[in-house]
């Protein structure tokens, strides 16, 4: 794990991101980083465990609102805010996961979508007293300057998220290498065999579920800090497709896919919105197009290109993607 | 037909190679079936017998090779087209449409060819007459097999591919089926995959032996066909 080879992919990618920071607008870079973290949870669930979730916005919102409540009502330290939001995310994922992971994959997807709608509704109407409903919670001014890295300043926020990103990606890569990682893949490909080997599918799935969705919640916390504002819109039904599109775009199951996918998606969206102005049409077409062409996403194509240029593997190829043809 | 040209076989398989996923299951299979022949294919579990039948019937794609019936290429055709061309497959799973009655099962069998003459099927399996309005899900294993075969022979198929018909059935039903197959061969060419070696040796005109995906023998002489001989081959 300590070897340069192991870290190579991650460090090169993040190194590139730092370089890009000097060419591209800072807000774009910050958005890309946080969105990538949002997506990697979804990517992990789909690529490794085989679950697709149309409800990722729910977990994003839980994390975001957790942080928002803390900063609006209690304190001003953004780091603590992140911790609070993350804790909310972990607890929520665990409770929800107890029921959800028992379900078959199609029910799982649908149920998660319903969850996202419920959470939306809760934050918008039911808890409007404390969430201020559609107006959202504003707490930008509440964020105190902190020593070392002042999160209220975008450039330092960027550095913080960069470091966090490296750690998160390293964590996922590490998981992939462990027995747990292999179990996750096995739970997708052959659950019966796994049970016979003595593993509990349920525990594996639950753990993966909590890890993935806590990461998503963490992204929510980061969004909250970055924007200084949360609103129910982040979990509206229309937004459920975002992480899924990026996952597919970047390549299901690939470690660095979320980053590539996010850059492509955000970039395309910003460019296209000047022309189309109708992002649903755009997202829909991309999604269908990618699904039908099934080339392993952008990262898959990029990977093949790099392999041809440099020979040998740049990143270990992921197992069969979730979209592989049935045997 | 010009003198000297060979009559196209009812079923001819040449150089068939089939893989399931990354694993190759069938290697270079050559087989043929003439009209009115009963040919059995024997082999241990996992030898590739069902894969062979499924490939012929169109349920599995072949990597290479040719499958023809009466000169018509079957490769790449969807299963329902193969069935329409008169090559009918009876799977080994003993499944019938449980929610439908026996009558409705037979109706579906007739639908493709619009041949609603059920006499042949009912002559072979008179018991079906009594069971007409019973939901097929309530039939016993033997009755289901009868229904499956009865359904398949509607429309007078040229070739019948039957996958392990006697597995798990009582001896009385097995001997009944023995007679049925012999009668069937008078109208159709029959290829049966079986593990019941005495039965195979009793009714076959020829026997193919399949071992680990390869055709290891073809027995054409009646005196060759003894259970012991088959066992040794496998």
């Amino acid at each position, binding site marked *: 794990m300590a070897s340069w080879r192991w870290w190579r992919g991650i460090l090169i990618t993040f190194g590139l991101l730092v370089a890009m920071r000097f060419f591209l607008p800072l807000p774009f870079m910050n958005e890309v980083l946080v969105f990538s973290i949002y997506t990697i949870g979804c990517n992990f669930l*789909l690529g490794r465990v*085989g679950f*697709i979730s*149309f409800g990722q916005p729910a977990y994003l919102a839980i994390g975001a609102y957790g942080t928002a409540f803390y900063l609006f009502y209690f304190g001003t330290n953004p780091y603590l805010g992140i911790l609070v939001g993350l804790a909310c995310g972990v607890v929520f994922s665990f409770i929800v996961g107890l*029921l959800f992971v*028992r*379900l*078959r*994959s*199609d*029910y799982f*997807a*649908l*149920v998660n979508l*319903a969850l996202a709608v*419920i959470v939306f509704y809760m934050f918008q*109407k*039911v808890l409007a007293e404390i969430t201020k409903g559609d107006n959202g919670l504003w707490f930008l001014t509440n964020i105190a300057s902190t020593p070392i890295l002042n999160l209220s300043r975008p450039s330092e926020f960027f550095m913080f998220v960069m470091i966090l990103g490296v750690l998160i990606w390293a964590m996922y890569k590490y998981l992939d290498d462990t027995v747990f990682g292999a179990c996750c893949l096995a739970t997708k490909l052959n659950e019966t065999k796994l049970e016979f080997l003595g593993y509990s599918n349920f525990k594996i799935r639950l753990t993966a579920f909590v890890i993935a969705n806590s990461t998503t919640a963490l992204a929510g916390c980061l969004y909250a800090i970055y924007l200084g504002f949360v609103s129910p819109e982040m979990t509206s*039904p*229309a937004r459920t*497709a975002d992480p*899924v599109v990026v996952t*597919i775009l970047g390549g299901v199951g690939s470690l660095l896919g979320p980053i590539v996918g996010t850059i492509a998606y955000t970039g395309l969206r910003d460019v296209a919105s000047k022309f189309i102005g*109708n*992002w*649903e*049409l*755009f*997202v*829909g*077409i*991309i*999604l*269908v197009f990618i*699904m*039908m062409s099934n080339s392993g996403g952008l990262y898959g194509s990029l990977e093949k290109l790099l392999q041809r240029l440099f020979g040998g593997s740049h990143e270990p190829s992921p197992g069969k993607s*979730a*979209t*592989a*043809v*049935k045997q | 037909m010009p003198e000297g040209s060979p009559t196209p076989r009812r079923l001819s398989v040449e150089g068939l190679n089939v893989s399931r996923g990354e694993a190759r299951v069938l290697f270079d299979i050559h087989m043929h079936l003439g009209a009115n022949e009963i040919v059995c294919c024997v082999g241990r579990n996992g030898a590739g017998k069902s894969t062979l039948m499924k490939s012929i*019937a169109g*349920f599995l794609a072949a990597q290479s090779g040719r499958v023809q019936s009466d000169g018509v290429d079957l490769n790449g055709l*969807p*299963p*329902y087209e193969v*069935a329409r061309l008169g090559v*009918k497959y009876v*799977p080994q799973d003993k*499944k*019938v*449409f*449980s*929610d*439908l009655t026996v009558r409705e099962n037979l109706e*579906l069998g007739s*639908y*493709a*060819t619009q041949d609603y003459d059920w006499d042949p099927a009912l002559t072979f399996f008179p018991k079906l007459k009594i069971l007409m309005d019973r939901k097929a899900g309530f039939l016993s294993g033997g009755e289901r097999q009868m229904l499956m075969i009865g359904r*398949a022979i509607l429309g007078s198929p040229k070739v019948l591919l039957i996958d392990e018909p006697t597995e798990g059935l009582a001896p009385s039903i097995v001997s009944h089926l023995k007679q049925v197959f012999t009668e069937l061969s008078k109208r159709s060419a029959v290829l049966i995959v079986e593990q019941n070696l005495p039965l195979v040796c009793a009714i076959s005109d020829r026997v193919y032996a399949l071992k680990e995906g390869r055709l290891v023998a073809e027995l054409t002489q009646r005196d060759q066909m003894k259970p012991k001989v088959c066992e040794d081959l496998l």
Partner: protein
Amino acid sequence: MSVQLLISGVIFGLSLASIYFLISVGLSLCFGLMRIISLDQLLYYSFGAFLTYSVSTLTGSFWLGLLAGVSVGVVLALAVERLIFRRIYERELTFSMITSFGILLGGIGAIKGFWGVVPKPVPVPFDNQVSLLGTDIPLYRLLVVVLAALVYGGIWLFLNRTIIGKAIRAGIEDMEHVEGLGINAARLFTITFVLAGSLSALAGGLYAPLIMVDPHMGLEVLAFVFMVVIIGGLGSIKGTLYSSLLVGQVVSIGSLVYAPLAIMAPFAMMLLILLVRPTGLFGAALAK
């Protein structure tokens, strides 16, 4: 709560159930036969509503609008089935889920582009009220319920008395066997898919006068349709009927008691049912 309120609540719930049923039965059939999750059904629902709006506004006749809505729904479904689904039937469920969601989303974008985002009203074809047990019930709502019941009857007849319907039922059990009998699978799939699309479009057209027609209407109904389908169990028509009725009543009566219950209650119910039966009340097992 007064009796009158309760009765109109029940009728309201029945009309909701009708709409949910029409969309869900299509979803269920598509799953049962083709093993796909066709989220794009909500797009045909939306188009059904929008075409009903446009044509009824143009011609002054609601029924003409409804006819247009269903027709367009049929054409769209046919196009989508031929161009897209036909190539992906062999894939895993998640594949069809994502792809159909993409179609739904893209279609919503198209609707937004064509009709704009402002919600549109569709006038009710007739205003009459009918008196039921001392309560005034809008006749149109009753009509919606009656039509949905007729559709259920029609579907029952189709599946149980016609040979194509029986082939579909047989295909839901085992498609391989159906093909082995020489029956054209591709055609069966197309028929089922287009049927589903037409029912969804009908739902949209019928519901249009009762709500404001807007591009996101498909997404708003999505969660409820999911809950109906999950509770009833994917692949079961009977299950869909019962769960539509159940969810319709829960949403309606629930919202009378305490507004947020409208969505919380069905969700809670769904979770409870899933705890006990992870495939819904009548769900089909996924064993191939």
